[in-house]
């Protein structure tokens, strides 16, 4: 019996010694501020800052590689708190939001077929591109709404996602989720926005969707140098002074919009107003 007791006691002693040695010589110095900063960060791990989660950003802030302004989830006061704790500038990062490049809700865009399968955009996209007549358009089954962790995306009554810019943290989940690649991240100061991805032109577009870009090129003519027509779509050169509101005025369909600070997306004066509230009738099958 005493052999067992002695063996255990000896083992205890050996392992205790190992632990003491490990504690002394393999000690890792960690900055206690990292934990403190991490506690102040929102803990959503959305990845919008570009670091691997909130812990990654906390290390970067303490290490001086990033400023608290990188975090798009915190509000102004919370950022100041982190900045005050670290004794650094909060760092003004411009707010970036997700924007959808499609305006074809059920009231304006036509369906060719009715889809009846797994209720998700990714599922519908597999079945020959989904039922929408426009091959590039929003399928309206709300994968982006489901994937958004911040409730920033809601589907409106026409089955089109609407981004709440105040809630959006530009984490990029919707960009990943959309099978038609309709979302992209843009600074809020990019006011001009092309709300269509249809690569066709002329009547072919209008047959499918009343608010699609039919590649008339008026916006490019009104804002030379800023807007260029590439593959039947206007492309805004955001590197230049692009805030030319007049570019949207003559757009016949309202496919190019102006994101007003207060009133939200505005179409031009020449744009056709769609007043229909119900679904557009399917013409072929």
């Amino acid at each position, binding site marked *: 019996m005493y052999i067992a007791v002695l063996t255990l006691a000896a083992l205890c002693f050996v392992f205790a010694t190992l632990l003491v040695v490990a504690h002394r010589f393999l000690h890792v110095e960690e900055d206690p501020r990292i934990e403190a900063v991490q506690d102040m960060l929102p803990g959503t791990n959305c990845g919008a800052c570009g670091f691997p989660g909130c812990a990654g950003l906390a290390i970067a802030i303490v290490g001086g590689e990033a400023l608290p302004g990188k975090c798009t989830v915190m509000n102004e006061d919370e950022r100041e708190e982190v900045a005050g704790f670290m004794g650094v500038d909060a760092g003004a990062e411009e707010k970036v939001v997700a924007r959808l490049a499609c305006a074809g809700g059920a009231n304006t865009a036509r369906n060719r077929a009715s889809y009846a*399968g797994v209720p998700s955009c990714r*599922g519908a996209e597999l079945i020959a591109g989904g039922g929408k007549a426009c091959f590039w358009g929003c399928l309206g089954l709300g994968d982006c709404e489901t994937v958004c962790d911040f409730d920033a995306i809601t589907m409106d009554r026409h089955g089109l996602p609407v981004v709440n810019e105040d809630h959006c943290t530009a984490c990029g989940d919707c960009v990943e989720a959309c099978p038609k690649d309709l979302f992209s991240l843009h600074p809020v100061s990019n006011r001009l926005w092309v709300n269509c991805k249809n690569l066709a032109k002329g009547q072919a577009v209008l047959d499918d969707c009343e608010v699609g870009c039919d590649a008339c090129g008026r916006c490019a003519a009104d804002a030379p140098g800023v807007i260029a027509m590439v593959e039947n779509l206007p492309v805004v050169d955001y590197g230049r002074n692009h805030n030319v509101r007049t570019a949207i005025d003559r757009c016949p369909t309202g496919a190019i919009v102006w994101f007003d600070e207060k009133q939200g997306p505005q179409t031009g004066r020449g744009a056709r107003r769609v007043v229909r509230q119900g679904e557009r009738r399917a013409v072929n099958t």
Partner: protein
Amino acid sequence: MLDFAKRDSFPHGIHPPENKDDTSGLPIRQFPFAPVLIVPLSQHLGKPAKPVVREGQEVVRGQTIAEADGFMSVAMHAPASGTIRRIGLAPHINGQMVEAVYLEPLPASTQEIADGEPCDVESATPDEIVTAIQRAGIVGLGGAAFPTHVKLRPPEGKTLDTLFINGVECEPYLTTDHRVMLEQTEDIFMGIRYLLKVTQTPRAVIAIEANKPDAAEKLAAAVPEDLPVEVRVSPVKYPQGAEKMVIKALLGREIPSGGLPADVGAVCCNVATTAEIGRLLPRGRGIQERVITITGPGVSKKGNYRIPIGTTVRFALEQCGAVEDISRVFMGGPMMGPSVSNLDIPITKGTSGITAFTAAETGGSTGHRKVYPCIGCARCVEACPLYLNPSQLGILAKFEQYEQMADDFHLMDCFECGSCSYVCPSHIPLVQYFRMSKKMVRKMRAAA
């Protein structure tokens, strides 16, 4: 002598109603030319072909209009004599907009087919035959549209011992392979000569299901004396036509997970593909039309047609008398064929049929069946020919556990035969989940 008693088959699988009787007795007929033919440049798996014509150019039927761009690519040929109207985007059955050649056939033309450089089976080397097959634009006509020339040469360090000519045609409703076997018997044996030379296999096996006894008898009686060809008949079962299943059924060898038929010394070629090789290569022609079955309760003039590539589904249905309440159209058969979202999608080399259903079969205008939760009955497990666990995979797919599906449950081996969805009493669209998950897994692996 045919041996019907031999039970060459595989375990699991299902028995959906065949519905082949409507068209199996109808001879192949030539289909009229549509006013505009849309020839996509990407009808095969792999790189799209490079167009060698310009807008406004006049072409002769059978002329090469696009050349293979690299090894994983095949040529395209003009389906009719006419004018190239434009080269632009066109809808494709895979849900993408792809580059396509819009061809307007000349109404007054005799539609004579242009011959190219012939490839003689006696004098040509295996490499020359591979090039000729690629130049003729031949892809797997069974539905996958995999470029045929890619899989024929035995891979490094492996020898092939059996060439399978797959005439199983297990998909319900379709009868194209059946008619081809009856009407193009000589072409098939010619094709086998080319294939035996390329693959360097000592023997060929023509696999046929027992529901086509006339084709089996005709082929068995017509085997030339100098060809080592055997005709094997196996009992009817779905999905016996799949490469993996036909090899397991007739050779008793199982293709390893993630492997190819070459891993078990076999190479598999669809019977219609073989017939096209035998028909086109001696005259140096290319595929500009294919045999398809247009059938189902949604059309009144069912039949087997030799249809120009690029005919739209709309034109095909109009010519075959689509009924008033047509509700769902499949490209291919109802088990594996994708449902069509746009009637302006053109028929490509991979389209083996058009199956149209009315509202009565699909359950109302929306065709939606209520999906119930999985009750764990394991009917899908009994049905899966690959011994996967569709029930577990379905649950994982719902919770987006794609990594686990691929790593632990062999999702990537699934070839989407649809047996699990067919037997599921809860109407869970399992195959659609798997297709979504496979796409996500491929995306994640590409990103990693």
